[in-house]
């Protein structure tokens, strides 16, 4: 499997994370190679979102190691962490669009901070390119409150891609959407992965999304990487804990 893809860009080893007495991640291990798209499956509340928040330094972890592009996240200072974050896109479950800004301003916000060398014209072109990618150029001057759930997800995706990141972390990108819109979003993710050659970790329990977007799946149970493999490998496993995820298809 590893020969198909490039060098490791995210290396998670023996990761431990707890909230008080609640141990969420006990000994989690995962490696993502350049160009690889991995879906992390798991029940609600098992720590999937916690995992990707640890990867971008939004949450601290108690034990183990997370290396992104060879740099240990816990050892980075704020400036180094910000530089690293510019290379990572994050699509939030709730889209997390800034309510007080228009769609255009939402996309420009990160660009103005990370892409200070860019001219006004370049910023405008990048924003329009991203909105064209997600089919929402016409919504450029709308406020987030005027958008539907599916549109918000698309804008969230466009915003995360505007800095042309090498890694995109998706936190339940299709949750709360009807099956048709969910499929559209999954297709869009796939298209963006191919167009911008990104690697990604996709947190999901939507098996259709997983089937469409993943090169590899990993099943998180009790805070560990319980099983991993391709969609076909995992779906043919007889282990009841793993099989339970594929019963819904």
């Amino acid at each position: 499997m590893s020969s198909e893809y490039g060098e490791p860009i995210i290396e998670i080893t023996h990761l431990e994370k707890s909230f008080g007495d609640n141990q969420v991640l006990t000994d989690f291990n995962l490696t993502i190679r350049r160009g690889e798209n991995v879906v992390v499956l798991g029940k609600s509340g098992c720590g999937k979102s916690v995992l990707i928040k640890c990867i971008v330094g939004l949450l601290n972890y108690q034990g183990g190691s997370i290396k992104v592009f060879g740099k240990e996240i816990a050892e980075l200072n704020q400036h180094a962490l910000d530089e690293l974050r510019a290379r990572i896109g994050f699509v939030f479950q709730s889209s997390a669009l800034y309510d007080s800004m228009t769609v255009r301003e939402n996309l420009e916000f990160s660009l103005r901070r990370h892409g200070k060398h860019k001219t006004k014209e370049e910023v405008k072109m990048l924003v329009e390119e991203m909105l064209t990618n997600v089919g929402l150029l016409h919504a450029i001057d709308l406020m987030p409150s005027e958008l539907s759930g599916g549109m918000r997800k698309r804008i969230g995706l466009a915003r995360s891609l505007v800095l042309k990141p090498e890694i995109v972390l998706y936190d339940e990108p299709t949750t709360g959407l009807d099956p048709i819109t969910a499929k559209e979003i999954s297709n869009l993710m796939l298209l963006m992965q191919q167009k911008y050659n990104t690697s990604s970790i996709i947190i999901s329990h939507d098996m259709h999304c997983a089937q469409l977007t993943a090169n590899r799946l990993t099943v998180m149970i009790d805070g560990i990487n319980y099983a991993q493999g391709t969609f076909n490998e995992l779906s043919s496993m007889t282990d009841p804990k793993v099989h339970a995820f594929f019963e819904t298809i």
Partner: protein
Amino acid sequence: MSPKVKEFFNEAGEIAQFAGRFFREVMLPPYEIKEAIRQSYRIGYLSLPLVGITAFIIGLVLTLQSRPTLVEFGAEAWLPSMVGISIIREIGPVIIALICAGKIGSSIGAELGSMKVTEQIDAMEVGGTNPFKYIVVTRIVSTTLMIPILIFIGDAIALYGGFLAVKINTSVSATLFFHQVFNSLTFSDAIPAIIKSYFFGFAIGLIGCYKGYNSKKGTEGVGRSANSAVVIASLLVFIIDLMAVQITQFLGFL
């Protein structure tokens, strides 16, 4: 120590830490000047109608209510001086600060709470922006600078309300009224009031931001943040006022 008392001291400590972080971050670049100006417009300019109407009514009612008593003692001529000193020293700053605690404190608490719950603060951090600096520092700076200005304008409107109330019953001219008001006022009346109004502004911004920024998950948390921001900020206004009176007295201004 009972859990509630412990919780109180814990929260007081957290607010002090939050304030400490504000003073650290406000000094360090980058300075979010554009956002601070935008917040000043929202906090200052957009609060003017409410502050203006309330201040006008306060001045009017205070004068109308005080007049019969002063007439009874034959001291009606003291009315402009009494109204002026009351408004500038105490009633203007405190009432306007309380109104701002309600309007601005709750709005900041709810806005930041909602940003926290919908992961907008996390999104900002992942996007390479220091959310504390962009959201919290700008709002606290704006309330600290804008609330004294609102109090100044409110005081002026309240005095005008007082003049209209006098005018209803007598034929006193505006020149005479305001001459009497300003004759009775000294710097020792105005300066403590101006200084304490900066503290009111700081307290309102700090508590609104603290409550919103630390809002717990869920919409219920947003409501709670807004509500407790108003309650604690209002309480702090009175505590600061009490301390200001003590300090003013100690320094011999009263």
